[in-house]
């Protein structure tokens, strides 16, 4: 038994295909990104070593910081919206008929591709024939804005479909966590005279704190590397007003062919994401985590 199950050749045969794939296509490229960041390179010709110049330029590039600011703003909004999802989940999980059906309805946008969502919302925001302005005009609003063309509005206009896309996902996770709370705990609190609000605040929320922390990490990290929908909807425009870190990196590499500088920005994106992940994990870590 042990001999067969510890046969080195067999172990290698089963693990290596998967391991080689992630090594070659995930880990080596990540290291190369940092390395290419040290080069002056257009992607095809010769590389020239220029030391930390790209990284220094990146840290002094106002466009990079503006895109980073937009990414952090998205992270902030995504995190704040978790409160709303949590409230919805608390209602859903309080013996509502049809809760299972409703949470599936909420999930539908999550199943669509970001490209389809972006194209759909381009139509929603269409200044003349979009559903949003049609409704606004019916309500008597004259000259509603061209949502995606106004530099001061565009970023927030883009946040809406992103929140729309992920709402069902977070509600699903909270709902599942809330349904896991033993009914006996809730019943005991009711017998002691606790109101529904007290039960939610003092019993349910502390019990799902672990899940809430995970979703905070997901919302922030997911926002920092968000790309698809923004790239399709506005391409970062007008004039950089909706540029985020990943779209700025993509533009540098694949539109202006500045592969060296693009790699440096890509590496900064990786470093920022990892640092933020560690910081949130540290901040939200507590030694008295409740178990149930």
């Amino acid at each position: 038994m042990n001999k067969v199950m510890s046969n080195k050749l067999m172990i290698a045969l089963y693990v290596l295909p998967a391991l080689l794939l992630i090594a070659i296509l995930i880990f080596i490229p990540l290291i190369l990104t940092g390395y290419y960041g040290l080069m002056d390179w257009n992607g095809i010709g010769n590389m020239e070593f220029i030391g930390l110049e790209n990284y220094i330029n990146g840290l002094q590039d106002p466009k990079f910081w503006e895109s980073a600011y937009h990414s952090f703003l998205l992270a902030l909004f995504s995190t704040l919206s978790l409160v709303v999802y949590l409230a919805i989940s608390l209602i859903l999980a309080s013996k509502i008929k049809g809760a299972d059906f409703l949470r599936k309805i909420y999930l539908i946008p999550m199943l669509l591709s970001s490209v389809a969502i972006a194209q759909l919302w381009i139509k929603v925001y269409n200044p003349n024939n979009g559903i949003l302005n049609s409704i606004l005009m019916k309500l008597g609003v004259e000259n509603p804005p061209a949502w995606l063309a106004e530099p001061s509005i565009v970023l927030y206009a883009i946040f809406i479909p992103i929140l729309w896309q992920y709402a069902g996902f977070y509600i699903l996770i909270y709902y599942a966590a809330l349904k896991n709370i033993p009914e006996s705990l809730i019943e005991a609190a009711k017998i002691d005279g606790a109101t529904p609000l007290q039960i939610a605040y003092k019993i349910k929320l502390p019990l799902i704190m672990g899940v809430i922390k995970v979703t905070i990490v997901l919302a922030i990290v997911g926002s920092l590397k968000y790309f698809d929908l923004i790239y399709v909807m506005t391409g970062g425009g007008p004039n950089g007003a909706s540029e985020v870190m990943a779209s700025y990196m993509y533009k540098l590499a694949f539109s202006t062919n500045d592969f060296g500088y693009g790699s440096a920005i890509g590496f900064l994106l990786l470093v920022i994401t990892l640092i933020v992940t560690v910081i949130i994990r540290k901040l939200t870590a507590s030694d008295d985590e409740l178990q149930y």
Partner: protein
Amino acid sequence: MNRIGYTILYICLGLVALFQIFPIIWLFLFSLKDNREIFSGSPFALPTELKWENYAKVWEGGIGVYFFNSVWITGLAIVLTVLLASMATFAITRMNWKLSGFVLGLFMVGLMIPIHSALIPLFSMFLNVNLIDHPLSIVITYTAYNLPITMMILLGFYYTLPREIEEAAIIDGSSIHRLFFQIILPMTTPIMSTTVIINMIYNWNEFVFVNTFISSDKYKTLTVGIQNFIGQYMTDWGAIGATLIISVLPILLAFIFFSNKVVEGISSSAVKG
């Protein structure tokens, strides 16, 4: 709680549901209208005459090709991912070797990587081996990037499989391959189907890799294809609507028929950032 309280709660939940679903219904409605009707009529109105020709027009205009590419690339990547992930999970959880914990850790680190940080080197690697504008680059990239999440979902199930099954099989003289392919793998069907669904959603909806690696129309998948395609039909809303509905239909159908599996898969993918 009293009846009025519940009514208010239901109205709130209903409004959220309406907000989540309404843009999609509106999309479906205008995919069946022509421009005249879209621009002059109420956006909420049902089509006076169902313009199914919008669908026929875009399907023959090129969407059919993208659709077929999406199907086979998604399918092939699913088979590869689930097979390789199952094999690796089997070796890590069931076989005895010192580095198994470390190797598992490597796969789990793969969950946290922002893919854009690897995009430029991936592009130049594929360029060097002539895989740029070749569908194989997409298939192996999907496989690699979905391995960590797929293994993450499989792990729990593999840990709970009883040791006695392996012992009995080995005592009977079964080889590792027979044990894995004929005994273990069939036992994991329920969890494998969850990973198939989650891989299907990821692959079908993936955009960045195809947009970066593929330039020929004949290899593009739906996400990138519809992007160019919609450019041509800039002002023909009905055609754009039909294109979008075609592109999301397979996943929506999968959701209608296997909604519990989809919910399970998405919940267990919560670890992916």
